């Protein structure tokens, strides 16, 4: 099990430093990454501009006019002492998800390739409480894991040019929700009416690294009704208290 003592500090030019806890996708590593981000936020080191948690490392962006990388490394080594995972519990989001074939164009194919029925695929996808490892690729795009082992497939061989926003996607060990229309090579199982990216909101991204997500299946007519709410800006999606998420973690 990786601990803070395995950490590597890797130079990424004169404005960023990578604090690498591991090389793979691992919930324990992720919890350490998020714990360090929390510590840095809490301590407030002069010269650090922002931190970006990823699956296995924390990128620290800093201002070289206020902080030398050697000093930064020293400060970070101090903060890494006795670093424990899960210093804060993420929020738990229940996201309505519609798996109607009209919204999940790859549901049938995923079922065929995994030797499951579409109903079993939906049941597996919506049974997991996902951990948001990181946001990236697109503004607000959450990499969530871990997908049940039965659903693991490589990316599509023919990526789509346009994936609609709200699409529920899977690839390898990850689940995701497309925040914006974009090209994409993941398998599409359905769609959520909840805008996970909304420019009218501050911040516009619904999810944060460390959050937990669970999908609640809904029928098509309910999906359509919620989409209408979302477009009118009257769809409120609130997370459950941190304690509920703590239990899920």
């Amino acid at each position, binding site marked *: 099990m990786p601990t803070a003592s395995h950490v590597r500090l*890797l*130079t*990424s*030019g*004169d*404005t*960023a430093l*990578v604090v*690498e806890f591991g*090389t*793979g*996708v691992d919930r324990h590593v992720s919890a350490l990454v998020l714990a360090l*981000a929390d510590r840095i936020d809490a301590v407030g080191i002069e010269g650090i*501009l*922002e*931190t*970006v*948690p*990823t*699956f*296995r*490392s*924390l*990128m620290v*962006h800093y201002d*070289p*006019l206020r902080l*030398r*990388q*050697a000093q930064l490394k020293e400060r970070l080594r101090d903060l890494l002492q006795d670093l424990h995972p899960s210093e804060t519990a993420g929020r738990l989001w229940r996201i309505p998800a519609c798996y109607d074939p009209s919204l999940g164009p790859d549901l049938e194919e995923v079922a065929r390739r995994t030797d499951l029925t579409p109903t079993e695929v939906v049941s597996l996808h919506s049974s997991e409480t996902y951990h948001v490892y*990181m*946001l*990236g*690729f*697109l*503004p*607000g*795009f959450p*990499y969530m894991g871990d997908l049940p082992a039965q659903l693991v497939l490589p990316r599509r061989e023919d990526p789509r040019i346009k994936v609609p926003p709200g699409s529920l996607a899977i690839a390898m060990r990850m689940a995701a929700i497309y*925040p*914006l229309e974009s090209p994409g090579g993941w398998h599409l199982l359905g769609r959520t009416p909840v805008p996970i990216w909304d*420019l009218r909101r*501050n*911040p*516009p*991204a619904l999810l*944060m*690294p460390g959050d937990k997500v669970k999908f609640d299946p809904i029928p098509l007519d309910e999906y359509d009704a919620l989409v209408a709410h979302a477009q009118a800006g009257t769809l409120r999606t609130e997370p459950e208290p941190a304690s509920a998420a703590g239990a899920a973690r």
Partner: protein
Amino acid sequence: MSRALQILSPGLLTTIQDMGRPGYQRLGIPVSGALDPVSFTAANLLVGNPPGTAALEIAYQGPTIRIAAESVRMAYAGGGATIEALHAESGAAERIPVLQSRRLVKGQSLRIGALSGSTVGYLAIEGGFDVPPFLSSLSTYTRGGFGGWRGRALAAGDALLLQRSSVDEHDESMLPPLDLKLPRRFRVVLGPQDDHFTERGVRTFLESEYTVTPASDRMGMRLEGPQLEHADGYNIVSDGIAPGSIQVPGNGLPIILLADRQTTGGYPKLATVISTDLAALGRLAPGARLAFEAVGIEQAEDLRIAFAAELASLADKIRPAGRVAAFDETKLMSANLVSGVVHACEPEQRSQAI
């Protein structure tokens, strides 16, 4: 009272940019901002704006803009360009030097031609734009459709609101030609994933010359040249991306990540261009050739400190240019209208060959 700039023709890719939108990368939101912060800063200084005030970033081909406000003060800095003020009624054109502020009045237009020596230039407006900031910045991120003017590049017919409906008449400002020359070699700090490349791969990178391809944009600069050999595959579990990160996907050809870079990525990053050389990188046009040189982190930091001091000293180089109005009677009488143009592109053209 109207206080707008009316876009008659938008140019190739004209966007509002400032120094970017840091602080939201953990939400996957790119920083964006001016590709060439040196020219951006110069343009703002010339119109007396605080550094960092949002300006128009012009790429390759400039716009034509009609003044709908009572008066505005503008200045252009960046790639060499023919800049003309067009008379309200006659449409007669008068050349305006780059790196000089100029007061224009209602009905007149400003036309900026094709850029040379750099892909970008900046048009700063005294007082700046009255456009709502998005997450504390006016930088446009066209891929995400947010920031700046409606999240997109300017289009014909747009009317950009300004903070001021008129500006005082006073002495104009000028700057001597900026030192926009390119480094002989772009300096990099190796890492964070240089250990994902063979020794030969790293040597190839440092000893070869690369060419900027036309597939480059504000997000990344794609290079053509000798392929770089990965040590152990070309996929890594995604981690963060820094400004100037040089990622190498499966085809072995480096991509340097610029202002609109994605926040995270899954290709190994061999090296990072030092922050001091990023502005020069932002000026490189497709077809330009470049090479790299590795420096240590402490040297990179020293260079950055010196660069910041140099940038700060730009303010001391501002000189009065006298009281100049477009279509000034005495100026029109003079036979010396065009030869007074400052050729700021000259030093860049010289340095284009590395």
